[in-house]
């Protein structure tokens, strides 16, 4: 009788330690309610975003078929499936270990030759567990509110969300659920999601150390590839920002600065055709604006305006030259593209499957 009472009590208490899920993403009971709620709101925001302005570069890098919210959500869900809180410790109580697991024979990323600083390199816990396991020849996993989750691939999708993602200093608006905050957090999710991709040396798309001349010189906060986490995060933020109709000018400017910061971490980033075309158009518009002065200007002023227009035309010519050079140098262009195909054992969800999960959560 006493046993049954204890069992009943445990059953009653169980839900308070149970994970929650939204749109297929599972949130550990240790994730603070406010954080989980904000992330769920972000996923809803993403799912409901049917991008009007499409960015071909973003689609190319992520291999997405289109920019519709359902596809973006599916892309994320296949790379981030489990969310753990900042206080989740990878200790004996939470870590699962299995020996003799047949990992792929592929090489490890170079950065894993030296294990120090791994946390700085990557905060995607699933990718880290997989790579450490592969190096140590042990299969690691975590106890996720009663569910045993093994990292048989970086695609296991375990992400640890830090307080930093929600601190007021990093917020664009006092309302945690404001669209600008969602755009920023979603870009971080896309960045982290990319760490679930890759195989062999590209597994986890680990960061590279920034050169000393860089603003983040000496930190593993850059990338030499053209399709890594910073690229994906920057493109996602640029795309979401352009479609954020509810973001005000101040928020948009701050988000633009964040986009610039992310792009600045991609070493030798090539300028795309679209970017060059936009640049050419901007300078041509300027020259056209300045030309309007000529009819009212005196001789001296007209001379100065004409000189300025001539200099702008030189800039336009240089950009047009860069544009013409793109097809010819495409193959040898820096930075290199890493192989994003994942390795190990994992199961992708189809767009239809992830849509069903989201629709069930939205009911």
């Amino acid at each position: 009788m006493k046993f049954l009472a204890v069992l009943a009590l445990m059953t009653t208490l169980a839900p308070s330690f149970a994970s929650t899920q939204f749109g297929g993403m599972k949130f550990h009971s240790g994730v603070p309610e406010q954080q989980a709620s904000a992330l769920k709101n972000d996923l809803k925001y993403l799912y409901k975003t049917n991008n009007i302005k499409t960015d071909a570069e973003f689609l190319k890098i992520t291999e997405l078929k289109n920019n519709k919210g359902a596809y973006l959500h599916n892309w994320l869900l296949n790379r981030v499936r489990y969310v753990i809180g900042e206080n989740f410790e990878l200790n004996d109580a939470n870590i699962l270990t299995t020996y003799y697991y047949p990992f792929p024979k592929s090489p490890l990323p170079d950065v894993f030759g030296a294990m120090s600083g791994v946390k700085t390199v990557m905060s995607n816990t699933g990718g880290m567990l997989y790579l450490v396991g592969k190096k140590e020849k042990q299969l690691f996993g975590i106890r996720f509110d009663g569910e045993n989750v093994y990292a048989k691939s970086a695609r296991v999708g375990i992400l640890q969300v830090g307080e930093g993602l929600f601190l007021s200093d990093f917020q664009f608006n006092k309302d945690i659920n404001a669209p600008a905050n969602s755009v920023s957090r979603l870009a971080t999710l896309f960045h982290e999601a990319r760490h679930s991709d890759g195989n062999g040396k590209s597994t986890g798309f680990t960061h590279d150390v920034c050169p000393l001349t860089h603003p983040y010189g000496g930190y593993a906060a850059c990338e030499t590839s053209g399709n890594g986490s910073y690229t994906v995060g920057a493109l996602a933020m640029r795309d979401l920002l352009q479609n954020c109709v509810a973001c005000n000018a101040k928020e948009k400017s701050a988000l633009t600065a964040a986009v610039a910061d992310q792009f600045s971490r991609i070493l030798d980033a090539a300028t795309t055709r679209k970017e060059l075309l936009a640049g050419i158009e901007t300078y041509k518009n300027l020259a056209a604006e300045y030309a309007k002065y000529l009819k009212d200007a005196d001789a001296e002023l007209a001379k100065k305006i004409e000189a300025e227009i001539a200099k702008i035309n030189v800039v336009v010519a240089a950009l047009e030259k860069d544009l013409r050079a793109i097809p010819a140098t495409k193959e040898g262009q820096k930075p290199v593209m890493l192989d994003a195909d994942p390795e190990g054992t994992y199961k992708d969800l189809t767009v239809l499957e992830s849509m069903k999960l989201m629709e069930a959560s939205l009911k």
Partner: protein
Amino acid sequence: MNLKHRIILFTVTALTLGAVIYFRSQPPESFPTEVKTEMKSITDQDETLKLPGTESLPAKETNTSTELIISMKELPVKQDLEVLSDEEIHHTPKAVLQGGMIIGELIEDAETHPEKQEMTLKFLKSCAENEDVLQAVRAVCWKKTLSKISDWKIFMPISDAEVPEEIKKLALKLP
């Protein structure tokens, strides 16, 4: 405090406020008080020029320049990246976000107060040229310099701007 004292205090306060309002409403001598009807010639000191028909508002440049000097001092500089949390190293430092917000605020202000647009444009160009300011923030400033010249119909030579190629290249990537 008796009634007499209160009346004296009220009178003094009213006179002081009146004087402040009067003097603040008087434009400073160093700036033009009339609407400009002729095109200004471009000099090294004043490199901006409004398109004809867009200069209907008198400039209140003293207040604007003070605000902009303060804003320039608030812009994040390289030293702000010397001490960073793990979160800031991995993602975007708050100094960068704050820099973006300052620029956004100034532009928003200039949109609603057209008399501030000339000075704001100069500020944006100076920000893009400033070697101490963070790279990402300089790129935003350059991007906005180019776009706001057309939006606000102000002539300001930009071909002489001392903005490094890497900043210009980064600005091309911004929305």
